[in-house]
């Protein structure tokens, strides 16, 4: 085993002389509001259409226009799309950051830039391709705004030519991007061709990077996690969505509303949904809970500060046992923090949100496919368990663009949980709202409007007994609280189990993670295996409360790394708090990454490679 502290990222090129095919990170450094987003998406989609695994990450500032933005595309023949520290191709369009951007490159990297910026003076170990992007765009139009926009498409042409991106792929991507807008399509096509021509006529290819068609994207789609979540919610039958704008969760409900308008209007034009922009997060969650109480499939989505504001209401939802789905698209805290950076910093606070003894079901999606799947399943869990269900996504998953297999249509009918109808009541005569009839801790409920004199019950956040009557009785309080604890155990048993990748026989080394740590962990496992001969088994959590399988996974291993994208090692704390002595001593090791950037594989592989792997190593 190797103790080298800096393994290369998976499948990274060792030899610069040979062409490096389909393993490339492109970074476009620009200014937000400058309209380069379309060009970046065209670039991304062109590679995607060539069948090469790709992912796109936008690093944008918390403002609207004029500040530095970096869009990074990673294309990788082996399918790795986690963030990668190395940039191979820098498109330096932002004079504010160009010097720093260039300084950060590793030797041999490529810089494409507006001719005249003189970046080539800065270093002599890089490949510089200046191009008069503005002038080239000026060939198409003299109108300033449009020329600026088209200059962005010129660099697509430049890159396309330099990297041998298939022109048909670019053309098709432009058509997809500007869907139906003929003039725009034509102008952009032209800009791309002008860029390509410029390269052919003026530049000599001096770098080893190139792309070539593959077939890794058959049937795949490119989508962001929030869109996937929105789709999942729609196919889960979301009927009431209430929200308050906040980055990075806004685009979830905004896209949901768009989908619903298209697919959930009936023949008479009437909607089978209501999307309401509330006055704040307290109102948003209050509306969602009440809608869940009244029988809708209700949801809201928010981030950091919104989660904190929802705290009181969520405790009511827990104690009064009301279904609702709450998406927490995590961003960097505390407080306003870094609203456009990613983190897994709300694990503890969301899991135990609100005062008193509260615990919440949390789903932990790691991919757009899981955003879709948990998008619909969350309603089933919420209604089955009669409790607020959180889905903890994050900015990296929610707002960045991922390739994925098409989503699986729900494989089962909706689970509307234990609801008694008027008919049921005509049979039974009465019911007790908070009685544990079935031994699973989950009581039965009725919906307001149920036409039976025994249907009504009184919902409250104050002390209540099995009949939902007000009480201050010690015994009744304890009974209800213990049943709630039992219900939580039921939750534990029905929630998605962790995904476990273990060698046979199992490795002595393991890693536990969740959510967007996944791609980096998977990539690191391969690097470690291939470059250092270290086999790392992997357990990916998909829900809280914790599955007991975690204990089995930890047991018998020498070292298990717990991956946290937060400062305080929140997942590790949670494992310890919940499993306590059942965890063997000395096995868990904390790896924390919390600088707001998506996790990269090297952070993981370097850490594991540098660990003292103990006996025999």
């Amino acid at each position, binding site marked *: 085993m190797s103790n080298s502290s800096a393994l290369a990222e998976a499948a990274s090129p060792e030899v610069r002389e040979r062409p490096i095919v389909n393993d490339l990170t492109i970074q476009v450094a620009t200014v937000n509001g400058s309209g380069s987003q379309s060009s970046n998406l065209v670039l991304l989609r062109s590679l995607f259409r060539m069948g090469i695994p790709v992912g796109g990450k936008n690093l944008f500032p918390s403002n609207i226009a004029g500040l530095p933005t970096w869009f990074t595309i990673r294309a990788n023949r082996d399918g790795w799309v986690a963030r990668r520290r190395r940039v191979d191709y820098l498109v330096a369009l932002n004079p504010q950051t160009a010097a720093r951007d260039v300084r950060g490159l590793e030797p041999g990297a490529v810089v494409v830039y507006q001719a005249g910026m003189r970046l080539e003076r800065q270093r002599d170990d890089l490949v510089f391709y200046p191009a008069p992007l503005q002038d080239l765009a000026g060939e198409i139009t003299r109108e300033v705004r449009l020329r600026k926009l088209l200059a962005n498409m010129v660099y697509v042409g430049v890159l396309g030519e330099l990297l041998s991106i298939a022109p048909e792929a670019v053309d098709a991507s432009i058509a997809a991007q500007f869907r139906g807008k003929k003039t725009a399509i034509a102008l952009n096509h032209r800009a791309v061709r002008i860029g390509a021509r410029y390269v052919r006529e003026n530049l000599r290819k001096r770098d080893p990077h190139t792309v070539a068609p593959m077939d890794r994207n058959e*049937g*795949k*789609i*490119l*989508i962001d996690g929030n*869109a996937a979540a929105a*789709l999942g919610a729609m*196919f889960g*039958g979301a*009927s*009431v969505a*209430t929200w308050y704008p906040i980055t990075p969760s806004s685009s979830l409900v905004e896209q949901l509303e768009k*989908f619903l308008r298209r*697919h*959930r209007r*009936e023949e008479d*034009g*009437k*909607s*089978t*949904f*209501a999307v*309401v922009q*509330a*006055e*704040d997060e307290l*109102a948003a969650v*209050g*509306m*969602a*809970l*009440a809608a869940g*109480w*009244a*029988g*809708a*499939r*209700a949801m809201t989505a928010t981030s950091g500060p919104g989660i904190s504001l929802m705290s009181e*209401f969520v405790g*009511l939802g827990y104690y009064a046992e009301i279904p609702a789905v709450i998406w927490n698209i995590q961003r960097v805290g505390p407080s306003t923090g870094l609203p456009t950076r990613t983190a897994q910093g709300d694990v503890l606070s969301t899991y135990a949100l609100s005062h008193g003894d509260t615990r919440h079901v949390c789903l932990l999606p790691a991919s757009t496919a899981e955003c879709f799947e948990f998008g619909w399943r969350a309603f089933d869990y919420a209604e089955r368990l009669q409790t607020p269900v959180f889905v903890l996504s994050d900015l990296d998953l929610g707002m960045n663009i991922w390739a994925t297999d*098409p*989503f699986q*249509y*729900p494989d089962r*009918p*909706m689970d509307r949980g234990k609801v008694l109808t008027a008919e049921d009541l005509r049979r039974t005569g009465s019911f007790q709202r908070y009685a544990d009839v079935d031994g699973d801790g989950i009581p039965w409920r009725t*919906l*307001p*409007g*149920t036409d*039976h*004199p025994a*249907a*009504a*019950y*009184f*919902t*409250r*956040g104050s002390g209540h007994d099995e009949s939902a009557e*007000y009480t201050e009785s010690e015994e009744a309080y304890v009974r209800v609280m213990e049943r709630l604890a039992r219900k939580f155990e039921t939750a534990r048993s029905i929630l998605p189990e962790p995904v476990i990748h273990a060698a046979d026989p199992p490795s002595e080394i393991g890693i536990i993670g969740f959510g967007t740590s996944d791609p980096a962990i998977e990539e690191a496992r391969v690097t470690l295996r291939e470059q250092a001969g270290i086999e790392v088994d992997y357990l990916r959590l998909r829900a809280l409360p914790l599955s007991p399988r975690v204990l089995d996974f930890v047991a018998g291993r020498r070292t298990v790394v717990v991956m946290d994208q937060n400062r305080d090692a929140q997942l590790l704390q949670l494992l310890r708090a919940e499993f306590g002595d059942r965890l063997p001593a000395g096995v868990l090791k904390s790896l924390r990454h919390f600088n707001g950037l998506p996790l990269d594989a090297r952070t993981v592989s370097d850490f594991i490679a540098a660990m003292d792997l103990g006996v025999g190593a």
Partner: protein
Amino acid sequence: MRKRTARVRRRPRANRLGLSARDYRGKPSTLCKGCGHDAISSQLIRAFFESDIRPHQVAKLSGIGCSSKTPAYFLGQSHGFNSVHGRMPSVATGAMLANRKLIAVGVSGDGDTASIGIGQFVHLVRRNVPLIYIVENNGVYGLTKGQFSATADENAKLRSGEVNRLPNIDLCGMAVELGATYVARSFAGDPKQLVALLRGALAHSGTAVLDILSPCVTFNNHPGSTKSYTWGKDNEEPIHLLDFVPEFEQIEVEYEEGQSRDVQLHDGSWIRLRKLDQDYDPTNRRAARELMLDAQENNRFLTGLLYVDPDKPTFLDTLEMTDTPLAHLEESRLRPPPEALDRIVASYQ
């Protein structure tokens, strides 16, 4: 346990649904004997009984406070939701989104509404969510033992001698300013007016705000209080006499021409306003604002239907939802078919 709710006065034994007043009662009240809130509960029972509302159609919503407890004390056959402090409006909104067929009655206190809850009050009114919004206004926080609320009058005194140095918030004034569509002020000690206003509110389509002076006998009923029974009785100036005339009853010409005004409400029923000192037109927003300004400036306790706009679309109207309550939609209407997913997926390829 004492039973203190709802001794409904002489009336027919059964309403048109064949239900008796007893079917509209709730649990015995646990409020202080004589609390204004209990008087309001009684009139709620009466109004729902007389307006032939099916109890199971009603959802009772509230925040936290003595007032917010009262939904347990009326309409025991209706679902109730005693939520968190100051947030009844969002809860009512959510319930109505899920089931537009519900008849929502929200009960709140002056603390619950004017202090912690003023934000949700503003936005509920602005949206015109179908809801009878009752503020049981006693100028104090009853349940936390009598601190001043934001509706306490400037210079009002607590029994302890504590003086309120801040101007009061006039919830009716706010409501009209915010475009509310049914705004009334009343008094727990004026059951006849109150029941007419409640029945009118039941006939109204949007938000009906009823700001009701409801004395707290324990903390704010002392001589010198401006929220006591005595003060209310001595100072109430009804701006008109009110009768509620259901749609199915013929409006009889019982009063001389010019002596009364009839306003037709959304469901076809009528509110008849019998003229007192002045001929007040509650459909005139400007007149309403002037009247309220006068009341504010001269500290007059004007009661009655201050403003009504029967025809403004409600929030639910603007959402263009299907008629079936969203809560009742079956899976086939909630989950688009697999082809829809295929089409969407294709658009992301």
